[in-house]
């Protein structure tokens, strides 16, 4: 009931998933901070087969002026897929999906960014999906948060994102593309690890209240794994001597 058809074995008898991972294991994640020359801050993430670049400009003047806010800075986010990032070439015009994702990512970052320090200005976050493989919004958010830190924007906390989900009636961490297509549910989560706040939460697919709570729990575990990698990426740029 409520699942999606599939012939694929999403979870074998040993609890191993179609790409060899355990249920609570995220895909291979690598993050690099400061990868662009012009951007004030930037980060590149490989999250499984997702390849995503984030760049930040700001705080800077807002044009047209009437879009600025005298009381606080504003955050603007653009999640964008390049034409060759998906199997069928993507039309360059922004899709309704991209517009919605840009909005939920912005709302996930806003609690963390101290925009009130920069009234009348904007901070622009650009996320470019170079290759997509399921879970792009979480991975893009992870890169964006590192890029914001790399740009020196003061933040109350890091924001770390990872999806939870459900395949073969089992709650799992970090849904990949096949699992998203053939699985039962996908729940992207963003989390501020020190303030303990969930700032992005979506769900497509059917689950019980119990599974819902379990998804949030395992998702936060994933976010915490990501958080360590985000810190590591920043440390590798700013304190390379301390890394080995």
């Amino acid at each position, binding site marked *: *009931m*409520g699942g999606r058809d599939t012939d694929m074995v999403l979870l074998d008898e040993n609890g191993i998933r179609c790409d060899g991972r355990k249920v609570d294991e995220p895909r291979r994640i690598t993050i690099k901070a400061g990868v662009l020359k012009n951007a004030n801050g930037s980060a590149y993430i490989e999250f499984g087969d997702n390849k995503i670049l984030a760049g930040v400009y700001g705080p800077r003047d807002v044009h047209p002026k009437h879009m600025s806010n005298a009381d606080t800075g504003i955050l603007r986010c653009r999640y964008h897929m390049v034409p060759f990032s998906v199997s069928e070439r993507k039309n360059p015009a922004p899709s*309704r*999906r991209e*517009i*919605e994702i*840009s*909005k*939920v990512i912005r*709302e996930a970052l*806003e*609690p963390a960014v101290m925009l009130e320090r920069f009234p009348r200005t904007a901070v622009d976050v650009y996320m470019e999906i170079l290759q997509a493989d399921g879970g792009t919004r979480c991975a893009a958010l992870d890169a964006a948060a590192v890029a914001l830190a790399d740009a020196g924007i003061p933040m109350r906390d890091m924001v770390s994102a990872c999806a939870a989900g459900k395949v073969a009636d089992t709650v799992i961490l970090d849904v990949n593309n096949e699992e998203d297509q053939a699985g039962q549910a996908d*729940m992207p989560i963003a989390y*501020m690890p020190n*303030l*303990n*706040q*969930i*700032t*992005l*939460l*979506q*769900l*497509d*697919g*059917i*689950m*019980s*209240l119990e599974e*819902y*709570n379990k998804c*949030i*729990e395992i998702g*936060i575990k994933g976010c915490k794994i990501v958080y360590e990698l985000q810190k590591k990426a920043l440390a590798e740029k700013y304190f390379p001597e301390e890394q080995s």
Partner: protein
Amino acid sequence: MTVFTTMDELKRNRIMDLLQEGKRIDGRALDEYRSITIDTGVVPKANGSARVRLGDSEVICGIKIQPDRPFSDVGEKGIFICTAELLPLSHPTVETGPPNESVIELARVVDRGIRESHMIDLTQLVIKKDESVVGVFADNVVLDYDGNLFDACSYAATSAILTAQMPRWEYGDNGPELQEGLEPLPTTTLPVSVTMAKIGSHIIADPNSDEWDCMDARITITTNSEGNICALQKGGKGGFTVDELATCGEIAINSSNKIRDILQAVVPK
């Protein structure tokens, strides 16, 4: 909708003060919905229609059912598309022109709540596999705005679906050919959208526009007839704790039962 640019600080203070005492500005309990009034068949020329009043928010959903080409990768399923539009007469701040991000989110969340529940059995809407399927368009138009359009649009769309009369087509030499007779849309479950706002540390259900303007964050949880969650969307600039989310899940499941009864009552016996 977050289409408002000014927020009445006094109103927020008043709302907050009341919430400290466990009260809401319009006297409701924290998890209490405003009155829900549903009229179906209000646009008789459409294949289905419903007007929903949720407090002073008012929405009409009209359904058009027509043959369509299937999407290339799902030739064995019909098409369901749900939209939402804020008519400019619904509120002084609404602008004409292409939908802004808030309206796009509204439409997509309402659509997903219904789609992910599998309310309409799309496998029964195939005229000829890979060639021709039935397309069901549920278009919501907002006539008056008083907060919580997510639920108002969802109830309008599901009511219109429940009461729609679908024509029948068979595939002939010149493509789909209209047949005699009408039948209800094939449905499997009844999704119910429950939207809650977080104001300070309080969780309230069905925020009206005053509450909407001063909320910290919101969450819309859609549940199906089996009492499972089938779609969810967090919004707003704030965050939720794990405990708050657990509370929201419970409120959603509890509230949905009463609302589902109201929605189900639109179906003629």
